[in-house]
């Protein structure tokens, strides 16, 4: 019999759930991020409330057996939001605790392989966001950017932007997941907010833009078209590196 384990959708929640899978000796489980679970008469449910303590104990246990890279991969795979990933993570963690040696390179194990592969995809998306964020300056000296990443990568890019733009106010807003990260020159906080569609799409914010913003966008567009070498045109390669779905927020592709 499958037990449906519901939790709040946070990483902490998932690790708590893993703890309870052991605690209650649940054999076959399916995870559900609470909001989207529909009760069926065929399953029993087990409700998890995220607990800092249980979560830490699982993490500590993993830290004993895995490298920092592998731990990072677990988190990244989690951020992929793939429907099966919670179960994959459970399988992975079970495999870790069932062995005395580190299994993180046991790529012939399906869960290990899938975690590494998803982590790589998430990592690539993180990289892309570090590249494709485009700030616009507002009158209040806020550098503001909108993104729609394939995966939930804001938690992964905050450090990079905090280090790099330490002396400016900035905000990066994930229009798909409806939250942002905001830096006030001291620290980064997560902010939930709702923009109107137009503002979120970066359109028509001219009214709140700094007066030089338009000029620099124009100059960037000019630069982008000037560096092109027509004799070497290669559209396939261009699109492979800069997939169309990202163009919406790139001033250089808005021509």
């Amino acid at each position, binding site marked *: 019999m499958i037990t449906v384990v519901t939790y709040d959708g946070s990483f902490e929640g998932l690790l708590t759930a893993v703890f309870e899978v052991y605690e209650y000796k649940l054999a076959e489980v399916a995870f559900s991020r609470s909001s989207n679970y529909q009760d069926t008469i065929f399953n029993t449910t087990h409700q998890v409330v995220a607990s800092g303590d249980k979560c830490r104990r699982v993490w500590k246990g993993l830290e004993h057996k895995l490298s920092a890279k592998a731990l990072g991969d677990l988190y990244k795979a989690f951020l992929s939001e793939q429907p099966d990933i919670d179960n994959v993570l459970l399988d992975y963690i079970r495999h870790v605790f069932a062995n005395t040696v580190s*299994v993180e*390179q*046991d*790529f*012939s*194990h399906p869960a290990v*392989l899938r975690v590494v*592969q998803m982590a790589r995809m998430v990592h690539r998306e993180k*990289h892309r966001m*570090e*590249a*494709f*964020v*485009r*700030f*616009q*300056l507002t009158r209040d000296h806020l*550098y503001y*950017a909108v993104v729609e990443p394939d995966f939930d990568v804001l938690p992964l890019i905050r450090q*990079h932007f905090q*280090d*790099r*733009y*330490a*002396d*400016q106010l900035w905000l990066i807003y994930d229009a798909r997941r409806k939250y942002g990260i905001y830096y006030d020159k001291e620290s980064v906080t997560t902010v939930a907010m709702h923009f109107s569609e137009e503002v979120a799409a970066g359109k028509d914010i001219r009214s709140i833009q700094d007066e*030089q913003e338009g*000029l*620099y966008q*124009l*100059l*960037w567009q*000019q*630069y*982008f078209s*000037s*560096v*092109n*070498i*027509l*004799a*070497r*045109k*290669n*559209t*396939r*390669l*261009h699109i*492979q*590196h*800069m997939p169309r779905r990202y163009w919406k927020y*790139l001033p*250089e592709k808005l021509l």
Partner: protein
Amino acid sequence: MISEDRIREKLAILADAAKYDVSCSSSGSKRKNDNKGLGTTGNGICHAYTEDGRCVSLLKILLTNHCIYDCAYCVSRKSNDIKRAAFTVQEVVDLTINFYRRNYIEGLFLSSGIFSNADYTMERLVLIAKKLRTEHRFNGYIHLKTIPGASDELMKEAGLYADRLSVNVEMPTEKSLQLLAPDKKREDMIKPMHYLKEQIVQHTEEKKLIKATPTFAPAGQSTQMVIGATPETDLQILGMADQFYRRFQLRRVYYSGYVPISNDNRLPALGTPVPMVRENRLYQADWLLRFYGFTVNEIVSPDAPLLDMDIDPKLSWALRNLQLFPIDINQADLQLIKRVPGIGIGSAEKIVAARRFNKLNWEHLKKMGVPITRARYFITCHSADFERRDLTPVAIKQQILALGNSKYSANFSPQLSMF
């Protein structure tokens, strides 16, 4: 404020003139933002890609395209009838800072035509770097292309502010340089390379002892040569590159396929295609030299001085050395696995890590993402199924080419996908 149209026009002219310089790398330096200033320098991010698929990482411009010299292969040459422009020092600083703050770029790549003389020009390049670092506390990437003939003092100052310095040799051999750039002396390029190498070594040594020693061009130096404008063989070109790597500890050598820009009869005619496949093969060979433990003579030799344009140099080497194959991937050395066509460094390392848990078979390899369509001719694994036919090199080459997978045909970019 100066007129928007004028600055836009300058940018158009001076970005256009700089674009044939292919190096765009912004990696190799680890400048931290520990003064709460602006910027970091890390692994090098490509913020955009041009429509020809090249990485846009740096604001790559000339300070000016006025030039007193007349190098035949260069659009900015004195005798060329083109629009000229020059930025002011402040304009370059403002552009860099404002692009950087918007996350358009990783930093600045600045070079220049030579106006009045080498030192006068070089002084301005250095001043820009200095202003960025000191007035704006800018920690992003700065690459300066040094001006041949500039004084050692200016070179030295440049190294204190820049992450990377480059001295472009332009032509693979002295003879070609004489032919096409009679104003330039190869000596003026080799000497500063030598000087920079010594400065870099010296600063690195001192830094080990005294932490407060300023960094000197922490991302090292690089150079560039134009290929396909003159008749050098790949053996000559790679031999030269190899020397630069060894003698001057260069970080990168860039190969720039000549884009015909003039009807000078010393050069390939206008309309001659850019040698993109060759350029790509040279980059692949260069990678084999730097990361795969190959020597130049394994890749090209006096008997076969040209790279094979149909297939990449690693496959080409393997076909010439079939007696070494097949190798057993559950046993062989990492070094040898790296040499298998189709298997890159990442895959090779994964194989060596994973084989400790399980004897690997084809299924494992596939799942791990090791591309085996090509590798299968050269390896055996934990499976009774392997290539038994005693195929000739020609047959293997044909079968691989017949795969017709675009992934294996030349990739027209210096940002290549490897093997």
